[in-house]
């Protein structure tokens, strides 16, 4: 099963029409990946669908980078009792 990071990158690539291999955890959704506000709404919706979770909109939309999204989703999955593979397959950009 894919890690959270791989799944986040796959969803991001699909919505923003990018190559998943070009997406890095340190990338900002808006500055580096070019997400517009409408696409941010789609990203949150598709992350919820992908992981079967429900995210607080304000908190979700305050997440700026791919790596932070991975952390945030991992936390929500834990809180909502959703089983997922480890957040990443290797080091990420969390502090």
């Amino acid at each position, binding site marked *: 099963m894919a890690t959270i990071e791989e799944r986040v990158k796959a969803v991001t690539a699909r919505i923003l029409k990018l190559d998943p291999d070009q997406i890095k955890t340190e990338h900002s959704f808006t500055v580096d990946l070019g997400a517009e*506000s*409408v696409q941010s*709404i*789609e990203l*949150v*919706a*598709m992350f*919820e*669908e992908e992981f079967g979770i429900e995210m*607080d*909109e*304000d908190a979700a*939309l305050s997440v700026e980078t791919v790596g932070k999204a991975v952390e945030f989703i991992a936390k929500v999955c834990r809180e909502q009792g959703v089983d997922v593979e480890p957040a990443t397959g290797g080091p990420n950009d969390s502090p």
Partner: protein
Amino acid sequence: MRLILVDSPEEVRGNFYPLALSRPLWELRCGFTSLGEKLIARVGVGDVAYFVADYMADAYRAKARRPVNDSSVLDPCFGFPQGGVPRRGKLVPVKTGNDLLIVDPRVKADSFDVAAKGPSEVGLDEQGSVLYARVAKDDVAKLPRDEVGEFIAAAKAKLPNVRSAVPTWRYIWDLVLANAEQITADFAAAGRNGIEGTVEQPTAIRGNKKDIYIAPGVTVHPMVVIDAEDGPVYIDEDAEIHPFSRIEGPCYIGKKSVLLGAKCRKGNSIGPFCRIGGEVEESIMQGYSNKYHGGFIGHAYIGEWVNVGALTTNSDLKSDYSTVSVMLDGRRAIDTGSTKVGSLIGDHAKTSIGTLLNTGSYVGAMALIMATGKLLPKFIPSFAWFVEGIVTKGFGKGKLYETAKMAMSRRNCQWTEVEQSMWDAVFKMTAPVRNEAIKKGRRAMLTR
């Protein structure tokens, strides 16, 4: 005698959504004034109290200058004449000894001919629902007074019942369809005509000048046409009519509203503090809303704090001329029986540029529409973010509240905690149908 307006239960109030999500039915507008103002004027009393849905009681209490959800008003020994007697900055109830007249706000005031004074009597409609209850003070004392619903049920059970044929408002679009006629009646009742404001020349006035009233403080710029040939035109205090506006009667323009070169076709009631451009026909705007730019709105009811984006247009007539149906609950279409019904737009809704609304569309309160140029679905739930052709959760209600605060502050009005609590309740009430629409949107998003 005390008049008590008791709002209808949710299943009835739902017929007046999305406008009634945030106000009692008597605050809805038709003609010059609200339904409540008409009932109060008809009954002719100053002592008035209200019972509203619990979730809006605090917010409404902050606006109404009369008792709200205060069951002590059912006590025959205490009263609030003219709202009470002021003592140390508060309104204090004083002894009066009152008969009570409890009225369902759906009752059409112009046809309500029940005498304020008289023996106890409970008027029922065909289904046996109480339309009014006149309760003499001696009988008031015999009824349970802790809760208004119990009081009315006991009155119905113990006091003489009569069959009442007084007509009632059934649906929100009834108000829109009756608006032109109501403006004409209200103009006659107001008994005013003439020009008390400033009318800069050249301005063209068509029809009989007796059918026009321009209140003090109004400024009508040059190159305006006021056409009272088919009905009266009443422009209320401090309104401003910019050049190239055309106002066709019957029409009511509310206080401090501005027309910006608008084609204001017949049958419009524009509440206070609105800004109107483009073309508007046979529509009601509650107040504090903007339709600043071009685009057509017809046979619509638009709530407060709505922003209608440039070139937003609604259809109000189907291309096959059949009757228009409306979905008030997002599930079941109701045939209005009318070939002309436009949009019903709830408070704080915002439409983007180029929004195209289908005939008989419902746009929920706090909904935000980012149109794509295609005709929208006929039902947009409250608090929905309509993005890329689907209903989404968008940036959530917090962001919508921020926008509402901002919009209100621009008109020196305040978004209050009690108002936010009321909207939180509306958010919960409207969640099931919104969540269904969001799920449907998700499915559409996944297949793109």
